[in-house]
């Protein structure tokens, strides 16, 4: 299995040794210089070893004369406004809007990617905007949104851009969030977290082979990131896209929930979302709602307090219930907040502390 990923990465790096078109380049923050103008990227666990002129597995990091550059700094290809619930963030400023930002590239190769148009491509193959951090923060302010959300493709691969923007946004009174696969090394994540208001991690499965075969990633590194988020006390939510026949076994879900309970505590919001056929997995059906409900009950059985079912409009577990008084404290319908009974981070009915960012 590990070999498959290694071969994929190697092939990609070999094939990417072609001359790159000119891009505004920003030196990468995490890499090591090696002999003969080689560099090793230290941003994500792939740790790509790159000769002069080669790009990383993510397609957006280039070694030029022994210096590693990010090719997408200030060059987002997607910028738009949407509801925060769409991320989904259910414990973060409910009902608010976010400015979504993404660049080309990704450090995984998920065969069901919903944003394949940008994640599975190189920056030179798509149109991008010239939006350095200052302009992006200005744009967010002009839209009147409280949050900039780095999302769609994989924010880790445009780390330098995200880092600089987050730092600036925080100083301008904005919040920042990232929607990520969590496949990042510890050091860069630690450096970023002080400037990040909340993080959403896609836990793609609880099987190492799934990560390697379907996503070209590794589970253990993602779990390390989750542990780090817990340790640093940052608000984070976990999303599990339940894909029929691939990661939907009760045993796997049970193990995952037990791990979350033991390592991250009971209060981390966990979303089981329904798979919709996409990209290369168009012939698998949507997830049966019963499978999601089973997953929900397994998670609740493990003692997790905030478990959601997503992508099933109108489902009762799309809403938030107080673990103490069991009353519905956030009533959601699609992306709409119909009722909100949380005041200053507490249940409006019984005063129980509800984890999250509410103001």
């Amino acid at each position, binding site marked *: 299995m590990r070999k498959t990923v290694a071969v994929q990465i190697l092939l990609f790096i070999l094939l990417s040794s072609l001359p790159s078109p000119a891009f505004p380049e920003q030196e990468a923050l995490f890499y090591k210089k090696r002999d003969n103008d080689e560099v090793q990227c230290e941003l994500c666990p792939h740790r790509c070893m790159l000769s002069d002129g080669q790009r990383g597995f993510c397609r957006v990091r280039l070694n030029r004369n022994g210096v590693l550059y990010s090719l997408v700094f200030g060059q987002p*290809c*997607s910028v*738009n*406004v*949407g*509801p925060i619930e769409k991320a989904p963030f259910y414990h973060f400023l409910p009902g608010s809007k976010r400015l*979504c930002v*993404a660049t080309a590239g990704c450090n995984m190769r998920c*065969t069901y990617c*919903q*944003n*394949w*148009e*940008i994640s*599975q*491509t190189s920056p030179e193959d*798509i149109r991008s905007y010239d939006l350095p951090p200052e302009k992006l923060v200005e744009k967010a302010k002009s839209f009147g949104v409280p949050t900039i959300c780095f999302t*769609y493709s994989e924010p880790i691969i445009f780390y330098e851009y995200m880092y600089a923007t987050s730092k600036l946004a925080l100083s301008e009174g904005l919040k920042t969030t990232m929607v990520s696969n969590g496949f990042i090394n510890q050091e860069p994540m630690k450096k970023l977290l002080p400037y990040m208001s909340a993080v959403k991690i896609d836990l793609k499965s609880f099987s190492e082979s799934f990560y390697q*075969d*379907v996503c070209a990633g590794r589970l253990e590194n993602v779990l390390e990131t989750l542990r780090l988020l817990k340790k640093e006390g940052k608000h984070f939510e976990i999303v599990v896209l339940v894909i*029929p*026949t*691939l990661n939907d076994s009760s045993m796997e879900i049970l193990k995952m929930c037990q791990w979350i309970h033991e390592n991250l505590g009971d209060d981390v919001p966990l979303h089981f979302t329904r798979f*919709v*056929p996409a*990209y*290369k*997995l*168009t*012939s*698998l*059906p*949507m997830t*049966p*709602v*019963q*499978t999601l409900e089973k997953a929900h009950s397994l998670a609740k059985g493990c003692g997790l307090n905030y478990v959601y079912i997503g992508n*099933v*409009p*109108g489902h009762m577990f799309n809403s938030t219930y107080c673990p103490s008084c069991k009353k519905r404290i956030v009533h959601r*319908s*699609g*992306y*709409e907040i119909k009722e909100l009974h949380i005041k200053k981070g507490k249940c409006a009915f019984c005063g129980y502390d509800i984890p999250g960012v509410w103001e």
Partner: protein
Amino acid sequence: MSYRAVFCLSAKGGSASGGLFIFPFLLYNKIMNKKLNWSLLIIGFSGMVAQIILLRELLIVYLGNELSLGIILGNWLICEAAGAFLAGQLMKKITRKHEAFIYLQLLFSAVFPFSVISIRLFKSVLHMNPGEILGPGTVFLSSLALIILPSFIHGFLFTLSCKMKEKKDEPASSIGNVYVLETLGNITAALLLTYLLIPRFHSVDIAFITSLIISFSCLFLVFPESIANQRPALFAVRLFFFLLFLSILLLRGSETLHRFSIEKQWEGQKILSYENSVYGNIVSAQMEEQVIVYSNAHPAFISPFPDIESCEEIIHIPLLFHPDPQDAMIISGGLGGFLRELLHYPKMNIDYTELDPAIIKTAFQIDKRKRLDPLHSELNSERIHYHLVDGRLFLNETSSLYDAVFIRVSLPAELQTNRLFTKEFFLKAKSRMKKNGLLVLTLPGSLNYLTDPMKSLNGTIRSTLRSVFSSVVVIPGETNIFVSSDNALDINLSRLQNRLEERNISHQILTPFHLSLKLDPIYQEWFNSEMKKVPEKINRDLHPVSVFQSQSYLNSFFYPGRKNIFSWFKNISFVKILSLFFLPLALLPFAILPQRIYSRGVISAAVFSTGLASMFFNMAIMLLFQIFYGYIYSWISLFIAFFMAGISLGGAVSTRKITDMKNPQRAISFIQYCMLLMLLALPAAAYAFNASVLPSFAHLLFRYILLAFSLVFGFLQGYEFPLASKIYTLTRREMEKTAGFLYACDLMGGFIGGILSTIFLIPLFGLFQSCSAIFALKSAVVILLLFAQKNR
């Protein structure tokens, strides 16, 4: 002929109509009195059955579109051509030809069912994701491994058959005879597959039935008179195979293998039903409480809990632009949620058209087993009227008028589906609409980023709609919703929100808030700015540019490595294409070579180009028929039948005359002239018909004219092959090498013609210019032939 399977598949199934075959059969009564000829006919029959069945199975596994079909067919034809060619080279070394003939057939009979099972199991065996579309490299290698044996053996058998039929005085006539017999076998296969085998049996059964027929032929038809003299081992092997296949069928071993293999193929799901129709494969499966119906391995609908967001958005948002919708029509894709949404309107009457009856049949089977909404309410509503017919044909013939017409075909990716996205169709739909009527269709979209293929496709359909309707609104999303009307459509959010509330329909997601998100001016502005520089092309019946754009879109994520090919085609001018088709003229300088060498090259070019032109011609005829009359399966079958009957007739006449023919070169040139004439006649007839310059009775006649065209072109192709063999053997006496090589040329021409016509040529340049390109190709061959004659 293998590429005829391409033709049958492109027409979505097998072929043929009964009485047609009596004539060629009678004509060949003399030939049929020999048992060997029956055996050759069975080889043609089994080859065609294997091709169609294996290709259908592979398309299910590869979740295929036209692009993967191209790779699979390419592999099949290359292997078959290699078999035929290699047989020619090895023939002298095969001392016991009769035994080889039997053993190869028996090997084919064993390999065919094995291949069907292997296709179904290989993903599971190799631990591949069941629902994942594989990359081109994997499709190429795996399909090659899965079909190499049957295709190679079948190609080998063609050349070996020619050798078995060889007459010392006239080697070319034996090739002609085998060619004709094989074609008759093909027709029989297409006929039986269409009307008997596919509707009644699954692929494993069909494979074993075919194997039984082959083993029967080996036991009783091939040289039975020499049974007494032959080695006991050979007889025992023949008997063993016959009894093996017979017992597998009688003891329902094939059923067990079928159940086992489909359960592996759809691992993790409980198979409820498995139907094969001429249009494809329909499977219903269960996961938890959810029932999924797959059409050619793609989920067609699920129940309960469909994709509620899509159902509500695609049905209700467009209807907000209408003050009081009461009559609607949905073309395909309505079951499992969309129809139920329409039923929320108390006065709504719905006409629903679905081409494949197997989908509706399966839906009723599911409903009988368990009541699952929304399916149950859709199948049992008196306000929904089901029409098992082509949507375009229905719209042509109905006198009803509609407030809304929904096209639920997701992509104009084939010539057939593209007919629902053309200017001509939109005009027809408009004529069936009431005042304030709406036409609603969807295309792939994205709120994050629109790729170039997405932009081209969306841009073309938008400008095509604008050329017909005075108002077109696009609601961007993961699926872009196009709403068109002659009434002014205005995105007035508060008015639409009021209407939504007034209608008081219970929605899961579509609230005034959700509507405000969907119709946010930011998205509208973004979409319009993204589409600003997209060229405004019009998708026409006879110039179906959106087929190319859809294929380019599919290619962008299935096979991104091939994007350069699409870019190249997209940007190439017609003049360049035309010059490409004159490429055979590159052989002209070789006219200075010895005549026999030059002549061989020219004859190969003639056979290759005829294979290509013939495939193009047939595709063009089918396109024309479908445009003017709709997709009527029996007629499509009739075209294939006429074409094949033409081939066998032409081959028969040619084979008869060939022995006494003094100047075959002149005859083959004459055939080329006739083909050129046909290539002029077809667009002329299409133009006259399309422009309505003919009296109305001519419209009724047009379909018969098209049938005649099919027959004549088939005749010309059939006539050419024995002639070409004759000329080739004049310069190279080895009949078997001639047969193998020319057969390979014919196959490759057909294959390239199929891919080129349906994906690139007709979509990019339209019917008329495409005809000119093929005309150029054939003209080049005529020039080469003229030089060949001059040098004699």
